[in-house]
């Protein structure tokens, strides 16, 4: 994807996450972008790896830094103990508007994922994204129980109940994702 069009989509994602009551820290943007790329086929140029906190892209981390340098995003510090939140600047909103065709193509998908994730916290998002990773990388044809086992093999602190809920939720999202 063209770098500026990609930045415009990331700006839209950050904005719509905030509008849907998401905390919109780095983890929220990371997981939402991963879900958007895999579930809704939005062709971001971000490679995701399975890292400590589930699927993660260092390229996206760099992009968030570049977008701050270009004043499209700002990082809002919070009172202790919480980590910072991202917000979209006026320049970021203008960037969205200038990429009207890109928004027409992918904007509704961005809005869809933001609405699905709403105010989920980081642990929920990590479970969900890891469930998607397991489903697409390891779980071809595997049932719920096998994927739950795989997920818990990767993230040992996740309870069986939470893992099962994450896998079920991913199956629902896969079924309802916009094409």
């Amino acid at each position: 994807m063209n770098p500026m069009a990609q930045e415009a989509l990331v700006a839209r994602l950050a904005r719509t996450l905030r509008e849907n009551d998401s905390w919109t820290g780095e983890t929220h943007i990371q997981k939402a972008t991963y879900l958007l790329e895999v579930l809704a086929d939005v062709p971001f140029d971000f490679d995701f790896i399975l890292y400590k906190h589930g699927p993660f892209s260092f390229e996206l981390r760099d992009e968030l830094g570049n977008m701050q340098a270009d004043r499209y995003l700002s990082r809002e510090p919070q009172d202790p103990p919480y980590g910072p939140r991202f917000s979209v600047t006026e320049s970021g909103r203008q960037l969205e508007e200038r990429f009207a065709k890109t928004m027409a193509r992918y904007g509704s998908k961005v809005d869809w994922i933001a609405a699905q994730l709403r105010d989920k916290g980081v642990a929920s998002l990590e479970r969900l994204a890891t469930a998607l990773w397991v489903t697409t990388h390891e779980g071809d044809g595997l049932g719920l129980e096998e994927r739950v086992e795989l997920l818990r093999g990767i993230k040992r602190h996740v309870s069986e109940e939470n893992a099962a809920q994450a896998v079920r939720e991913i199956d629902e999202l896969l079924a309802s994702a916009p094409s």
Partner: protein
Amino acid sequence: MTARVPGRSNEVRDPVHTFIDFNSLEREVIDSLPFQRLRHVHQLALSGQVYPGASHKRFEHSLGVMHLAGRIFDVVTKEEKLSDEVRDLVPKRGEAEFSYWKTVLRVAALCHDIGHLPFSHAGEEDLLPEDWDHERITLELIGSGPMAEVWNSVRPSPVPDDVIKLALGPKKVASLKLDLSFDDWEGVLAEIITSDALGADRIDYLLRDSLHTGVAYGRFDHNRLIQTMRILPRSPERDSEDGGDFGEPQLGIERGGLESAEALLLARYFMFAQVYYHPTRLIYDEHLKDFLRAWLPDGRFPVEPDGHLSYTDNEVWAAITKAAEDAGADGHDSARRIAHREHFRVVDERQIAEDVGERSIAVTAVFEALRERYGAESVRFGRSPKRGEAPDFPVMQRDGKVASSVSLSEVLRQLPVARDEYVFMPADLREDAKKWLKTERDNIVTAAAERVEKESDEEKEDGES
């Protein structure tokens, strides 16, 4: 070769850390050809042309990183530093697994730079085959003949993949698409070397580069910082239904080290501007790349281990010196500009407050316009990566709770994110170009911004149709 058991019996003096000691295994690594080659690779490439004292090499830096990584390991694995949440993560002190991982960590720290090209980063992007960089060469070398002999000669023998993981860290392992995964413990160990915020690599290069350049901005109280390091649960990002689940562990600090961490991150910010991306250093990099493209066979450095090991700064400097005096030599013009200090000068640079948002393409637009007006040979472009944006790491407060460093530190909150960009031209064209830009720059940037946005948006539409 007889297998040896590591013993601690060697030391060298060091201007940053006073003494650095190493055992017999580490000595085998240090004595290997790939590591000895680092004696001839400048840490700061051609920064010595700007800061005469910057003549130090990757060799002593790598020793320093090993020293610091070992110190950090010793601190964060102390029994009294381990909270209940992370105790099970750390192998038991005195057991074989504990000493194995300390050995791998120190060896990985030694090896983390062995893939560097002559003059370090200067030619990396343009002078290697596609998909190659110095970390990929490091990876190849760790598994290559000279290093394999080292691994086979000692007991316990480090597993090369373990060395690779800790030397490169997860970011590079991911970008190289290696089939290697990190468990929580390995992730923390890799952070000890490679962490943006607290890693031994960064601590050593800031202190060492500051010392040798004479730029005092790079100094900070690293001893205090290291003494306060801990393995901590990640700082929380929000108050939610996930409350209390602070995620997997990472390298952090106690509250008492926060000012030292602030000083480190300020040092990084200032050193980026003053030293690493000083505009004169950037243009020397461009002249060096121009020379190497002309001088190297096929315009590329070799990447196989034997070829890589045959090139150091020495061979390149000798060639520059010779070509500078021979008008018929490949790369003569670039060599002359380096050797005779006839480097291009800055004619335009990013305006921090103005060249943002839709005008963020300003300097590249000016670069293109100047190339069109004066010819491609007379115009060069240089940029830094973004700097600033303090990394967020966990801090254990005095009540034992973990908080985000950015939430606790006003200094880290205010650290600006910036990126520097420059256009350079020969001294004899500089004034004419600057005069022209005085009246034309705004028109050039406005027109380019409109064009880029239109093309970007349409390209996406066309590409998907």
